[in-house]
């Protein structure tokens, strides 16, 4: 054992170690801190050696978890020391103690810069290391040029250059402008020729970061990466010191394959062939060996190769090879490999055509769901969830339910939610669905949100066949001891409505049902009492002939609750009492609830009437759509203005509520915070009691009506930032202003796959997307910028009808300074320009709600292809007639030169083929569009410009699908007319209401909301 080489430091460490308890340790540490503080106060007489020793002690104390709130200055000042031993301490300790936000760093920028540009290689290394480890904007601005020079310098040793590469990477992460994209891609290509594998490893890390941000600038690096991978995989010319347990740098192999995964495709057939040869070799040549390190290293490479094969959409044969391998992995005992097998199989689900093969492994995956290791269980759950469809939903959901009782707390919520989603999505029959949800409530009631049980009620009410069954089940559950309160609610509702259907069965007499329910009353909360009272009233009215004993009992209860502390309960008790006294005359009031309407048009009409901001509009329209959809899985939708959500909740409550808002009674009762229900039967409409009664079972926020929804629309229109997809909340102007222009951010993200979608003083929402044929995957990065948590976080995806989207669980709270990632899966069903909307809200003092358009736009499902004239024209000729070919003269085009126009088309993934059209004023482009309905479909585009008038052109679009042709043509027009990369008006943040430039539209008003809606319906 070696001691530190500094006696004082060693003694101090020993002292601390010898402290018998935490208290003593604190005393010893405090004493030392006091000593150091005194010595630092009077720097005179402090030798460099002493200073160095104290700074190390400070770091040690800091590492033990004590606050060190002084001495930063001393540590930082050592950076300027002339000799290596002190300088080294200064750099290392500064990098540990400070982060990029510390002001102290500004003091040393000059000293650091001098070391970087100086002649002393050791100092250069120290400085580069610290800058690389701290990063930050200040360093980025003042040092990036010098660091760049070191990286490409031919006179520096590899030692310096590899540090420079990573240093530049760190600065780039803070500020992407540090590499000048134009010149830099050639530099990168040159750097990839590097012979020193240490430098190459660092350069490859840098490339991964660069291509993940802007792959288009680095196509020239692709063949080089394939070469590097070949060299490594064949172990050709690799120095011994760079092999790890016989494997040529597994890390560099992994990194290279990671970089390759950012290129959407590989066009060049030779490069593609070489790459597939290498991948094939890795897939087939990786054996399981005894040595654990060798095994891990070779499998690290193998799993990365698998990911790359999936990305490249290899031929079916290779894909099934991959699935076979994964099938082997998920059955092995070795936990790491099994974990990775499950994880990668989940990713594999994105690849079409292999789902069926994956399904064969279901039994094996279920075994992992019960593994003692939570890491494995989580992966198994994700995989089962992802692979579930109508064919296996029953088995999978039942497995999840079975496991729910045994699962530890950490997983229950996720399990319950996933089971509920799957049950709803894939229910083979409704009785099964009811079974599943009741079981869920039984086993994990805390995790079943109200929406889920409302949904059950809705299903049961609308399906007569289901009613006796549901009543029977409800009775079974409610009869158990210790029932969850949600179970009391749903059972009470169902039994109140339908138990009379089974009244002749033993155990179902009104008296028995009543007494089972009434047992629960003392233990439940107010809102459940309200439901129980309604149920009692219903039971009473359904008892024919009347049972005087039961009647007296229930009336006594009503009497008692007339003086209950809660006004809602009081009113119910009083009214039910009065109504039931009227006997058969008020029978109709207590009739079964009518079916819930399948659609509510009011909202939609409003959306058509008003010109509202695009996102808000899509949001309304989509919510309306979702009400009727059977695959609705929403946990507590919350509209912008805090009015009651127009989700199923409103359907459950009152079908005719919005039809006659002039009804006086309704207004008064709403003022009392009491739900009203206008019975739709005409016989009752004149009856005051009829208005007040009806089924009050299901609660929503009091005082809600449709009216505020309209307000929200109006305000959004009037607001200067209406066009920025921001809607105010609670009818109050939103006091949280977005940072930057949301529309510009959205436009930028339409053309690239990562960036910031939204930012305000509290949160930043970043987005990163990957696209593979008609599948896509977003990751939303929700970053809390504050030092206190953001709560009530909610993200709801409102997909247009042509996209299937699934957002993974979004945590309700984002911890301070933390970033959470929420994957969002997208499947494109058919061509359409409609937009998906993210309805996002959080609470930070006030509730903030924004609706953001998501860049899952049409061009994301396009993949450019290059064609020769011989390939192009035969296709062009076969697609010559409308509706497969559409042509339009577009005016009001942003004037662009031909190269600019080509750049624009390439930017939206339409591959321009320069040599096809002889006329240099024309452009021809081709691309493949992917969607579930069209599969991969070829699109051909021709743009004929008029050199004398650049503001007009003729656009011709052809494809094998009429809708695709039309949508694509309109889509291209939108881009030609408002060119999104043009730097537009100054910042809108504090400006007075700026009239957003109206996109001059040619043709059938494509921005007219009415037209948009019509197109959607």
């Amino acid at each position, binding site marked *: 054992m*070696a001691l530190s080489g500094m006696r004082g430091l060693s003694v101090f460490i020993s002292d601390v170690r010898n402290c018998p308890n935490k208290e003593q340790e604190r005393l010893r540490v405090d004493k030392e801190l006091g000593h150091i503080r005194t010595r630092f106060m009077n720097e005179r007489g402090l030798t460099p050696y002493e200073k160095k020793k104290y700074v*190390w002690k400070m770091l040690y104390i800091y*590492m033990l978890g004590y606050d060190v709130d002084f001495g930063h200055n001393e540590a930082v000042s050592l950076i300027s020391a002339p000799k*290596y031993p002190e300088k080294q301490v200064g750099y290392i300790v500064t990098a540990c103690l400070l982060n990029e936000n510390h002001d102290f760093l500004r003091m040393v920028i000059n000293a650091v810069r001098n070391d970087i540009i100086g002649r002393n290689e050791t100092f250069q290394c120290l400085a580069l290391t610290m800058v690389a480890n701290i990063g930050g904007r200040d360093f980025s601005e003042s040092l990036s040029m010098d660091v760049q020079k070191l990286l490409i310098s031919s006179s520096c040793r590899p030692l310096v250059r590899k540090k420079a590469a990573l240093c530049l990477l760190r600065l780039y992460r803070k500020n992407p402008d540090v590499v000048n994209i134009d010149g830099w891609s050639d530099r990168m290509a040159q750097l990839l020729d590097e012979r020193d594998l240490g430098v190459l490893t660092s350069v490859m890390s840098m490339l991964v970061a660069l291509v993940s941000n802007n792959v288009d600038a680095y196509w020239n690096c692709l063949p080089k990466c394939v070469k590097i991978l070949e060299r490594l995989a064949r172990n050709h010319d690799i120095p011994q010191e760079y092999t790890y347990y016989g494997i040529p740098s597994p890390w560099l192999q992994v990194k290279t394959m990671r970089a390759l995964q950012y290129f959407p495709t590989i066009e060049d057939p030779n490069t593609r062939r070489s790459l597939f040869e290498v991948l094939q070799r890795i897939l087939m040549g990786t054996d399981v060996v005894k040595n654990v390190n060798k095994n891990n290293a070779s499998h690290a490479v193998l799993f990365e190769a698998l990911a790359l094969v999936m990305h490249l959409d290899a031929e079916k044969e290779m894909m099934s090879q991959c699935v076979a391998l994964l099938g082997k992995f998920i059955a092995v005992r070795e936990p790491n490999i099994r974990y990775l097998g499950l994880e990668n199989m989940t990713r594999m689900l994105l690849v079409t055509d292999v789902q069926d093969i994956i399904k064969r492994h279901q039994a094996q995956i279920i075994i992992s769901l019960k593994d003692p290791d939570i890491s494995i269980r989580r992966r198994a759950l994700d995989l089962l969830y992802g692979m579930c469809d109508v064919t296996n939903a029953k088995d999978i959901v039942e497995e999840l339910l079975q496991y729910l009782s045994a699962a530890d707390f950490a997983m229950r919520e996720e399990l319950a939610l996933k089971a509920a989603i799957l049950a709803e999505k894939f229910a083979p029959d409704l009785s099964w669905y009811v079974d599943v949800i009741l079981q869920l409530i039984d086993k994990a009631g805390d995790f079943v949100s109200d929406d889920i049980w409302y949904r059950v009620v809705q299903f049961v009410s609308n399906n007569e066949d289901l009613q006796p069954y549901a009543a029977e089940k409800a009775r079974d559950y409610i009869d158990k001891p210790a029932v969850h309160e949600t179970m009391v609610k749903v059972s009470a509702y169902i039994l109140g409505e339908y138990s009379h259907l089974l009244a002749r069965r033993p155990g179902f007499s009104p008296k028995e049902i009543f007494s089972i329910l009434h047992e629960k009353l003392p233990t439940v909360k107010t809102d459940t009492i309200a439901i129980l009272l309604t149920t009692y009233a219903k039971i009473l009215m359904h008892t024919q002939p009347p049972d005087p004993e039961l009647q007296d009992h229930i009336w006594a209860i009503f009497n008692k609750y007339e003086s209950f502390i809660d006004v809602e309960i009081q009113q119910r008790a009083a009214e039910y009492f009065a109504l039931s006294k009227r006997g058969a005359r008020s029978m109709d009031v207590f009739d079964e609830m009518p079916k819930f309407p399948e659609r509510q048009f009011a909202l939609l009409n409003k959306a058509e009437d008003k010109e509202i901001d695009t996102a808000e509009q899509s949001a309304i329209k989509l919510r309306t759509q979702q009400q009727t959809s059977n695959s609705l899985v929403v946990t507590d939708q919350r509209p912008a203005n805090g009015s009651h959500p127009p989700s199923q909740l409103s359907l459950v409550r009152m079908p005719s509520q919005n039809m006659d808002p002039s009804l006086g009674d309704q207004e008064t009762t709403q003022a009392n915070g009491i739900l009203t229900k206008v019975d739709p039967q005409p016989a009752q409409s004149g009856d005051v009691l009829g208005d007040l009664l009806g089924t009050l079972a299901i609660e929503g926020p009091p005082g809600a009506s449709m009216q505020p929804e309209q307000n929200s629309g109006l305000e959004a229109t009037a607001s200067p930032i209406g066009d920025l997809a921001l809607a105010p909340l609670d009818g109050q102007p939103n006091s949280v202003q977005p940072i930057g222009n949301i529309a510009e951010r959205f436009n930028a993200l339409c053309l690239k796959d990562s960036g910031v979608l939204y930012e305000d003083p509290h949160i930043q929402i970043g987005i990163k997307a990957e696209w593979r044929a008609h599948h896509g995957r977003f990751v939303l990065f929700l970053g809390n910028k504050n030092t206190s948590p953001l709560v009530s976080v909610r993200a709801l995806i409102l997909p247009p009808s042509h996209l299937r989207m699934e957002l993974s669980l979004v945590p309700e709270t984002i911890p301070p300074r933390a970033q959470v*990632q929420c994957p969002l899966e997208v499947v494109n069903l058919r061509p359409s320009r409609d937009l998906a909307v993210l309805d996002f809200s959080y609470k930070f003092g006030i509730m903030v709600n924004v609706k953001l358009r998501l860049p899952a736009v049409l061009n994301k499902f396009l993949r450019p292809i290059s064609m020769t004239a011989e390939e192009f024209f035969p296709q062009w000729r076969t697609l010559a007639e409308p509706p497969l070919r559409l042509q339009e003269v577009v005016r009001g085009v942003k004037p662009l030169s031909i190269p600019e126009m080509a750049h624009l088309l390439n930017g939206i993934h339409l591959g321009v083929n320069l040599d096809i059209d002889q006329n240099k004023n024309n452009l021809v482009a081709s691309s493949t569009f992917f969607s579930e309905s069209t599969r991969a479909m070829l699109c051909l585009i021709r743009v004929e410009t008029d050199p004398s008038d650049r503001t007009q052109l003729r656009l011709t679009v052809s494809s094998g699908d009429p809708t695709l042709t039309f949508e694509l043509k309109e889509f291209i027009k939108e881009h030609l007319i408002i060119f999104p990369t043009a730097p537009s008006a100054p910042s809108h943040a504090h400006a007075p209401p700026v009239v957003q430039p109206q996109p001059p539209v040619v043709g059938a008003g494509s921005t007219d909301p009415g037209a948009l809606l019509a197109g959607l319906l």
Partner: protein
Amino acid sequence: MQIRFILLQNRQGKTRLAKYYVPFEESEKHRVEYEVHRLVVNRDPKFTNFVEFRTHKVIYRRYAGLFFSMCVDITDNELAYLECIHLFVEILDHFFSNVCELDLVFNFHKVYLILDEFILAGELQETSKKAIIERLGELEKLE
């Protein structure tokens, strides 16, 4: 694609090395160290070396009484980082010839130096043990 932090902790949860490659608040660092220790210390040796931590993943490995943990993205290559930990341990072992926890305690400052030659900006800088050991030799001479 970047290591967020590296921790070296003993079974009692004492931090022997902590290196953060993304900015964290002080209080947050303490919490992270506490949580990661709790997360890994009671895991069965037969379990995976990967465990979800908040929205990321911790790749960890135990050597005698010491836990080496790296926090990475959920999409990162787990096994590559797992072997990265082992390579680091091999380098420490070579440098201290048969490393034990006490070496790391009394020479914590050297451990930081070694780490800086191995990992930089949260990325792997050098994978040749020979190159790193030679470099450390050069630096020793300068002391």
